[in-house]
């Protein structure tokens, strides 16, 4: 607490405040996302807000941007108490926000997206002309080049983000909020973004950066606030703190950054992938000839920025996307595009799959926990006979699994949507790991999962490996990849850029590979 006090004292004599929030609270139904939060952000600084997934960071900033209405609390902008009932008011107060999921109209041009909502007059022509000029100016000032007439859907994700920032600047925002801006960027793109942000700060703009990555906080922010479970636990000057201290504030106790495991003892080859190619619905090639193999008793980690083909790799191996090439499981070729390329056949051949997005794919959120226990395995004679489901067996099995995996509350009759993220993931992991598969595909195993469940799930993955099974791990969290993998393959633009042993590489080298830079350039 002393940090906070010194900071606040320091501020009251010095810099003026851009933003002050007092006593903000917000609930979504029974979930309290923000509890009595107060925060001060000085003008002309980069202020970080760090916290785990679900800590309430995005909700807080969405309130500041008028996207949600707070249940209680006050907002001061530039020292003036300001009511922000909607985004219009936030924009008028000089606040701009770049959301984690971009808010762009896909089939509009860059120019049209930039002026949308901030047009001058009823006709489009003058606004478009003015925006074109301003965009040219901004490109010069901040290295933010983008073709004003390009259609959004033809642009890369990095450029989408640039358009979002340009949108805010076009509206003359003095305070810019960015929500997890680097999640979709390569390390070099992220560095470029940070240069832009520093440039904006030096021009007197105030930046609020929401992230769960400690490195970003340490690299770029001047001050940082830490959130945990909807509460603000501390605000400190970045140069007075350390990653370890922040991590502790985030989770409330010392974190185990390493996973305890014995060295792998790989056996025979379980999975062989040769020259695998996948096209998406639009005909764009998303996997461009991927080759890899995994042996029994080994975890192969796939590192990469989201959207570089990892999802497609999981989908085609899991049986719900078609591809070309050769995939062999225990020496047997797998059908990649014919009759038997579906999830059911994959499961029958010994592949289990914890998908990247449990709410969209891994679970039916409206199904009871017991119905989800058989999901994907509903043809198993233990769960169904003839044309009928064996609901009683499903329920009993769910009760047992819930006990073994410590799912809380252990009630099989609750719908999946009423469990927390960590407990939902445990339901999925229990279902897949207890099939004792030869190969486990597991994507983003701990996304949106609380620390306690993360440790538990990591232990399960290692235990499966130690039982002599093959594991293909996909994660965008480099820490997770480094901690769990026996070998690391890096994907970029639908290709494997290279393979490394965790003991012989570091985050810098992996980061370069993730950006598509081949060795030698390092």
């Amino acid at each position: 607490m002393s940090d906070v006090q010194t900071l606040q004292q320091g501020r009251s004599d010095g810099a003026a405040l851009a933003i002050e929030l007092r006593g903000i609270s917000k609930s979504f139904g029974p979930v309290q996302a923000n509890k009595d939060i107060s925060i001060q952000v000085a003008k002309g600084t980069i202020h970080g807000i760090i916290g785990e997934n679900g800590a309430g960071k995005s909700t807080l900033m969405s309130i500041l941007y008028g996207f949600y209405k707070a249940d209680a609390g006050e907002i001061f902008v530039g020292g003036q108490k300001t009511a922000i009932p909607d985004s219009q008011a936030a924009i008028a107060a000089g606040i701009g926000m770049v959301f984690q999921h971009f808010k762009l109209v896909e089939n509009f041009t860059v120019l049209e997206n930039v002026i949308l909502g901030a047009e001058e007059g009823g006709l489009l022509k003058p606004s478009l002309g003015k925006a074109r000029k301003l965009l040219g100016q901004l490109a010069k000032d901040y290295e933010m080049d983008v073709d004003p007439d390009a259609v959004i859907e033809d642009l890369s994700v990095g450029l989408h983000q640039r358009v979002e920032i340009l949108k805010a600047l076009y509206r003359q925002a003095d305070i810019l909020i960015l929500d997890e801006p680097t999640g979709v960027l390569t390390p070099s793109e992220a560095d470029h973004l940070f240069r832009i942000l520093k440039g904006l700060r030096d021009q007197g703009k105030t930046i609020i950066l929401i992230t769960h990555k400690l490195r970003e906080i340490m690299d770029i922010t001047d001050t940082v606030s830490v959130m945990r479970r909807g509460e603000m636990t501390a605000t400190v000057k970045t140069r007075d703190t350390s990653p370890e201290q922040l991590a502790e504030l985030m989770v409330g106790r010392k974190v185990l950054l390493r996973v305890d495991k014995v060295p792998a003892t790989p056996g025979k080859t379980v999975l062989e992938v040769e020259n695998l190619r996948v096209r998406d619905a639009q005909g764009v090639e998303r996997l461009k000839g991927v080759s890899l193999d995994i042996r029994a008793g080994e975890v192969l980690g796939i590192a990469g920025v989201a959207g570089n083909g990892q999802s497609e790799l999981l989908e085609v191996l899991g049986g719900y996307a078609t591809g070309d090439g050769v995939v062999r499981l225990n020496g047997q070729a797998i059908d990649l595009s014919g009759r038997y390329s579906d999830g059911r056949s994959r499961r029958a051949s010994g592949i289990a799959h914890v998908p990247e997005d449990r709410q969209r794919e891994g679970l039916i959120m409206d199904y009871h926990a017991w119905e989800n226990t058989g999901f994907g395995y509903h043809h198993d004679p233990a769960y169904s006979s003839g044309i009928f489901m064996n609901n009683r067996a499903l329920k009993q099995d769910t009760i047992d699994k819930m006990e073994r995996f410590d799912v809380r509350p252990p009630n099989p009759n609750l719908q999946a949507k009423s469990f927390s993220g960590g407990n939902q993931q445990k339901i999925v992991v229990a279902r897949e790991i207890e099939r004792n598969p030869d190969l486990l595909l597991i994507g983003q195993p701990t996304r949106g999962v609380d620390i306690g469940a993360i440790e538990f799930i990591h232990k399960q993955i290692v235990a499966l490996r130690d039982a002599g099974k093959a594991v293909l791990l996909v994660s965008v969290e480099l820490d997770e990849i480094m901690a769990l993998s026996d070998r690391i393959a890096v994907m970029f633009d639908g290709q494997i850029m290279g393979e490394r042993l965790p003991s012989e590489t570091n985050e810098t080298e992996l980061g370069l590979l993730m950006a598509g830079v081949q060795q030698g350039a390092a």
Partner: protein
Amino acid sequence: MDLLGVLQILDSTVRMATPLLLACLAGLFSERAGIFDIGLEGKMLMAAFFAAAFAAFTGNVWIGLLAAIAASLALSLLHGLASITFRGNQLISGVAINFLAAGVTVVIGQAWFDLGGRTPALEGAGRFQEVTLPFADALAPVPVFGPIYAELISGHSPLVYVALLFVPLSWWVLFRTRFGLRLRAVGENPAAVDTAGVSVVALRFYAVGICGVLCGIAGAYLATGLAAGFVKDMSAGRGFIALAALIFAKWRPWYALYACLLFGFLEAIGNRFQSIELLGIAVPSQFMQALPYILTVVILAGFVGKAIPPRAGGEPYVKER
């Protein structure tokens, strides 16, 4: 067939296409803003009834037109209330509106006129009269061009010209104005509009309102231009053909004109001939009637070009968590 015969069919095509075109443009505004509307049929029917009823009461077709627009607008607002305010299912709301109109027009019509759901026949100022364009009579003797001008271009109800004017107007509004930009954006990605500080709800209500006005004019044309009064179920599936034309037109104003002219042409042919010989095969009139629906299914199946509706269409806007 001689020139006059052809001209008569084309003339009839324009008449038949007019209500389709108005309803199609109505649906275009609504669906471009992300609100599916299968209630075009009901709105047209309700409008037709109120147009005929008020024209019969007052003897003034313009008051009938206003009543038609008001009635159609009321149903539009109901659709907006259900699908925008209360985030209900837009298709179900449309179905309800179609039935509501089918029932209410007869129940109220019986109470007002006691003619088994009809309105009294309209005459004189109670109907839209044909507009003779300048020099139509003078030019009529000129070969080829004269008859085309006098028969085909001149001599329609004013609402026909209004409908045709709405085509460039709709294009201009949608693609050249701020309102059009926002309206198209809200049908593609309402979150983009919301975070840009523009009200999604207000925009969608405007769109649904425009849809109501256009359906109102379409219905008024049915009862006071094409016919001389209201009869039960007189919209006769035109709302659905308009919907079909909208898909055919891929949600674009000029294409909408062409699609409606095509479907109007099919109707004109079907009205004139019981069956036609094509390549030696007698095509029954029922086939001609079903042709717009069959063509739409073919288009929807994507065998002839793909019809991609506005991305946010049919989904109520909920701020994501």
